[in-house]
């Protein structure tokens, strides 16, 4: 995935909408902050998710963090490779490290999320 084509949540998830399937992952900034990822707890296919709510947890050596869904809908796919190799997310957060795919309602947009530029501005200001 080209980061320029994605949208971003304040909580460092990225989203990509194609038709009514939204793919969700974590940004490079987020995984770099986490460093040593040891476990990712993902929901099951067909589970509902609500925009703004946690859909799972990502665990590093030092801490556990929630991951928040930027959209509402039902889970259609979960990246099972992360179960056996959580480091995929650190090495390739925008492609092989995708987390979940959510089927959203017709007419859903990602307009409420940030563009790459806006997200980069957010992280720049966070670092101070």
């Amino acid at each position, binding site marked *: 995935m080209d980061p320029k084509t994605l949208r971003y949540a304040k909580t460092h998830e990225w989203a990509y909408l194609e038709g009514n399937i939204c793919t969700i992952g974590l940004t490079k900034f987020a995984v770099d902050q986490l*460093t*040593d990822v*040891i*476990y990712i*707890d993902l929901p099951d296919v067909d589970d509902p998710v609500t925009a703004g709510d946690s859909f799972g*947890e990502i*665990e*590093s*050596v*030092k801490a*556990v963090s929630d991951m928040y869904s930027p959209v509402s809908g039902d889970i259609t796919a979960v990246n099972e490779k992360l179960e056996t190799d*959580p480091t995929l997310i650190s090495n390739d957060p925008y492609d092989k490290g995708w987390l979940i795919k959510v089927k959203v309602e017709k007419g859903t947009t990602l307009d409420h999320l940030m563009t790459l530029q806006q997200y980069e501005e957010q992280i720049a200001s966070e670092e101070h």
Partner: protein
Amino acid sequence: MALRTPLYDWHIGHGGRIVEFGGWDMPVQYTSIVEEHQAVRTAAGLFDISHMGRLSFAGADALPLIQQVYTNNAATMKDGQVRYGLICNENGGVRDDVLVYRWPHGWAIVVNASNREKIVRWLDQHKNGRAVEITDQTMTTCMIAVQGPQALALCRGLTEADAEQLAYYYATPTRYHGKGCVLSRTGYTGEDGIEIMASATQAVELWEELVRRGVKPCGLGARDTLRLEAAMPLYGHELSEEIDPFQAGLSWAVKMDKGDFIGRDALQRRRADATLPRRVGLELAGRRAAREGSAVLSDGRTIGRVTSGTVTPTLNKAIAMAYVDPAYTAVGTVCTVDIRGKTEEARVVPLPFYRRETGERSRVSAPSANPLGR
């Protein structure tokens, strides 16, 4: 405001992520905890441990005071020897775990950063007019550890004294670039290595020389995963004012027959109490880490609590230390651990989880073979 070691600016300037620990701003990691951990297990890692309290003792009555507060026997120590022990309260609970150093003309005790002020006050309270002078040297000195199979080789020629000549758990005064320092063959990682106490004014110079020699800077994150693999207790987790040394499996550090010391009577009773929870090692079936506070269950009943847990880089498993009811301490006992609402299967395994390859065993790791600590 948290305290800062003489190396704080260096840590910031080199990507150290700072957290507050025991009242000090310390680096938890520079790159990755796993990378730093692996560096110690395979080569050599560098730790700023200047936050630990360094107390020195002078005067004719130093030994009697130390003997009064310390559970191990300082009187049988040789000059230059370093010995681990506990300082207990009157109920036998642990106030701190410490290293005592014996010198020809004095003593030193290294205490945990979080307990420094508490122990200084405790010693003061028990001086009772004795001829002993205690100096807190923490702020005027630094302490740096080099740990790993290559540690000794990379430190060759660093100080006047040769660390390779030092026996394990021995120390010597020596010089670094002409100034006095103390070199000891001690550590908290389960690997061979040294710790150096030097003047605070030499901290940066000493640290930078070690970095140039190829020792990799490591933070407290790796320090924690390393000591956990080696089953070394951490104050505030496996040790506290409510836990006695026998429960912790540290009976080897308590010399009941050396004479009276604070907590001895209570410890006599506690040692005989077969109902008290004991420290065990757990290996978990899954990949999620148990954390401090996680409940340990058997048949749906809580039978213990986790005190430390992680997924260990060297062993590549989820491990934890926990206190469990005595009926569940046998190696092989199966139980479950509640990790944030989901249970994981676990079983009791022998400690330590990791032991380095040589004949020398880590002094402060394993509980005695008898889980009741007698």
